[in-house]
């Protein structure tokens, strides 16, 4: 009986209602999740106010104090100044997306315009395959190979000793985190930008060539210009992945709630940090302690709200660029 119902030809009215129901379920789920996370996180924000986002004290000591709160709900400890974690998140994300964007744009131009057909036939599927590698594999390579190499060969003992009373340098560092994160997010960006460059109308490219511009100039002044909204979209998607990346960063970024200091010169890149998502993974064991769980939910809420603003920001950034873009 159900089969008869499903195989009957679908009227538009029926399709509309069915799809509408599915879409509403998804929307309701997302809305419920946002409300749930915010409600769980509220005590942590309420107790700290705006200072939650500020610095001061050691964030790991604060987390430990929250975890060891007394049993009496009136005496729960909530004091937290999460700046090092927020800063670590922003630092790893923006450095990786910045570097990745340059690589991805150049690689996409190569694949679309300059690569010999044979190289293209290999490059494209490989790039798309790379985009799907689980992050834990990158984390393993990072911890087994890169962290060890950086710790043994790139950081001298003098450098380690110079900051020993502030932070220890062991190879797990901002540098390794950013390098692996860049490798992780670049393939997605390449795939999106390649598609965009391909969709540039042939006539525009040929027109430019007819005027005497060479392929590089045409690519740079016509195709890339036209593809800018797609490049923004690629950056937004990559930023979202970088923001939410937890396992890999928890493995290689150093596991200390420390804010790397740019004034330290080259040492800055060797200093450890721990982004929000990695902090959630590292501390998920303690969720049962109520104030600690609420603090973890507060981290999640910040990530959730930032990704919301990220989508809005991406949309806003695309609007002026659309004037020259391909209309689809």
């Amino acid at each position, binding site marked *: 009986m*159900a089969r008869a*119902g*499903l195989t*009957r030809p679908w009227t538009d009215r*029926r399709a509309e*209602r*069915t799809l509408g*129901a*599915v879409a509403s*379920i998804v929307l309701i789920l997302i809305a419920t999740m946002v409300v749930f996370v915010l409600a769980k996180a509220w005590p942590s924000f309420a107790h700290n106010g705006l200072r939650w986002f500020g610095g001061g004290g*050691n964030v*790991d*000591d604060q*987390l*430990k104090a929250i*975890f*060891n*709160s*007394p*049993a009496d709900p009136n005496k729960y400890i909530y004091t937290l100044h999460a700046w090092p974690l927020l800063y670590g998140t922003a630092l790893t994300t923006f450095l990786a997306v910045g570097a990745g964007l340059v690589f991805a744009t150049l690689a996409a131009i190569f694949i679309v315009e300059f690569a010999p057909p044979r190289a293209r036939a290999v490059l494209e599927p490989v790039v798309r395959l790379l985009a799907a590698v689980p992050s834990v594999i990158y984390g393993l390579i990072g*911890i*087994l190979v890169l*962290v*060890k190499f950086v*710790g*043994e060969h790139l950081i001298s*003992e003098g450098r*380690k*000793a110079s900051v*020993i*009373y*502030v*932070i*220890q*340098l*062991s*190879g*797990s560092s901002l540098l390794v985190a950013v390098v692996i994160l860049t490798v992780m997010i670049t393939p997605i960006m390449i795939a999106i930008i390649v598609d965009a460059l391909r969709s540039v109308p042939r006539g525009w490219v040929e027109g430019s060539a007819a005027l005497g511009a060479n392929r590089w100039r045409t690519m740079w002044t016509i195709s890339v210009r036209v593809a800018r909204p797609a490049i923004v979209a690629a950056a937004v998607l990559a930023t979202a992945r970088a923001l939410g990346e937890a396992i890999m960063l*928890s*493995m290689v970024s*150093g*596991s*200390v709630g*420390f804010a790397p200091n740019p004034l330290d010169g080259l040492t800055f890149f060797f200093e*450890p940090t721990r982004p929000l998502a990695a902090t959630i*993974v*590292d*501390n*998920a*064991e*303690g*969720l*049962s*302690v*109520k104030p*600690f769980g609420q603090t973890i939910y507060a981290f999640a809420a910040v990530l959730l709200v930032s990704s919301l603003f990220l989508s809005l920001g991406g949309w806003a950034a695309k609007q002026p660029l659309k004037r020259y873009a391909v209309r689809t």
Partner: protein
Amino acid sequence: MHRMRLPAVILISLVVLTVGVPAASAKVATITMSGSTSVAPLAAKLAKGYLKIKKNKGKVRFKLAQGGSDVGVADVAAGRVTIGNSSRDAKPSDPGGLVFNPIAKDAICLITNPSNNLGNLTLQQVQDIFSGKTVSWSDVPGASASGPISLVVRTAASGTQDAFQKIFMGSAKVASSAAQKASNGLVQQAVKGDRNAIGYVSLDFVGGVNAVSYRGVACNLRNAKSGEYGGVRNFWMVTRGAAVGAAAKFIKWIQTAAAAQRIVATDWVPLR
């Protein structure tokens, strides 16, 4: 009547997914466990051994999940499992009404990179190193490494961290510059990969690293069993109120039966 069928089908499937499959028939008692990753291998072995006894065959079933001591304690307090496994002692912030049943003991070893064959540490040395007072290996007698010390410790929610603090550090504070890892394996890996590192792990995880003697006693199973080694902690099976029924029998068996003690003694320290 046919119009709204598909949405209805989706809704029903969602409801079924959330409600879950009803429990198995009542004749077979099911003991569910969750919690500490350190206790899990022992719990699995014990469950297997328990099922080998003839009178238990077909009478009892086990389901074992992992997730950390605090997960186990939270699960059992909420009634989601019969037994919560914990590698840390009871805390004042734990929910009321829980009973911590001891099942075994485990040693915590101090480990260094294999290239640094540090022989022995005293309590004072451990505290100085982990609190950040001693920052260079050249200040530690017996160490073959030189240069700054890298500390590798566990996150706040770890049972091993809790035990290390109580047994070794007392009221001293672990340096906040120390790298905090989320599991025994990650600490082991970090120490393996860094010539200047020192960390602490459960006795199970000393492969490929140098286990340092503590107060002149080597960290191994024999010394932990004999009670000579100082860094020993408890493994617990936590129940909500005193254990009843199948769970009570199981825990009683672990604590008293000679066969159970033999299973514990393969890699851990029996209670007696």
